[in-house]
C-alpha cells in the first residue's frame, strides 16, 4: 500500500505562490524548529501572516483549493484553513513574540525542496515557547535549546 503523502502537493504550491506573490508570512512554532534541526514533532504547520485582510492572500488560498475560516465569536473557533490546506494552522497572536514586522525583519529564508520559505529563527521560537507557559511547550524547551547550541557551533 502506498503511504499517503503527508506534505501535499497543494501545500507546496501554496508556499511557492506565497513566496512569488510577496505576501509576508512566517512559519513559526515547532515546524520552524523542526526545519532548523530539532528532532521533535508537530501536528501542523503554524503560519503567521501580517494580516489576513489581504485579497491577494485570499485569492492564493482559493487557487490552491483552500478555504479560510475566520475566527467567530459564536462558534468560538480559532482562525483556521480548510479544504486542501488543513496542514496549515494560521496563528494570529503567537505568544511571546513582538509585532509581525519586527519578527519578519529577523526571519531566515530557508530552502524547502527548492521553495524559499521564511522561518522564525530558532531563538525566537524558544522565546515564544518560554512565554506560552503551557506544559507541552516547556517540555520541548531542552531539545530546542540543545538544537540552538549546535546551530551556533556550526556557524
Amino acid at each position, binding site marked *: 500500500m502506498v503511504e499517503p503523502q503527508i506534505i501535499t502537493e497543494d501545500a507546496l504550491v501554496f508556499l511557492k505562490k506565497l513566496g512569488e506573490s510577496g505576501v509576508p508570512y512566517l512559519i513559526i512554532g515547532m*515546524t520552524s524548529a523542526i526545519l532548523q*534541526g530539532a*528532532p521533535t*514533532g508537530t501536528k501542523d504547520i503554524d503560519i503567521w501572516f501580517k494580516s489576513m485582510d489581504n485579497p491577494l492572500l485570499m485569492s492564493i488560498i482559493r487557487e490552491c483549493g483552500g478555504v479560510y475560516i475566520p475566527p467567530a465569536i459564536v462558534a468560538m473557533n480559532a482562525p483556521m484553513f480548510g479544504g486542501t490546506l488543513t496542514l496549515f494552522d494560521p496563528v494570529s497572536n503567537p505568544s511571546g513574540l513582538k509585532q509581525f514586522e519586527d519578527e519578519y525583519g529577523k526571519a531566515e529564508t530557508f530552502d524547502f525542496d527548492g521553495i524559499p520559505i521564511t522561518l522564525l529563527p530558532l531563538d525566537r521560537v524558544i522565546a515564544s515557547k518560554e512565554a506560552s507557559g503551557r506544559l507541552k511547550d516547556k517540555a520541548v524547551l531542552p531539545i530546542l535549546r*540543545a538544537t540552538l547550541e549546535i546551530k551556533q557551533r556550526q556557524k
Partner: protein
Amino acid sequence: MTEAEEKLYIEKISRYWQIAHEIRVQHPEHDAGDLVHILQCLESSPRNRLEEGLRFGRAADYYRRRAGIPEEIG
C-alpha cells in the same frame, strides 16, 4: 549495510557522541543523547525532517487522546 558502510556509520556516530560530550563540558544542562539525535536530524533533508516531525506529532497526538491526556499537557 556492507562491512565498510557499517564501519563508516559507527565512526560517524562515535564522532557525534564526541561532539555531544564536548558540548556538555560547557553546557551540562544539555542531554548528550539529545545532541546526538540533533546531529543525526541535521543530516536529513528539510522535507524529510518535516515529514518525520509530522508523523511523530500526529502519532503522539493520537496516543495522547487515547490515553485521555489533556492537550495542554501532551
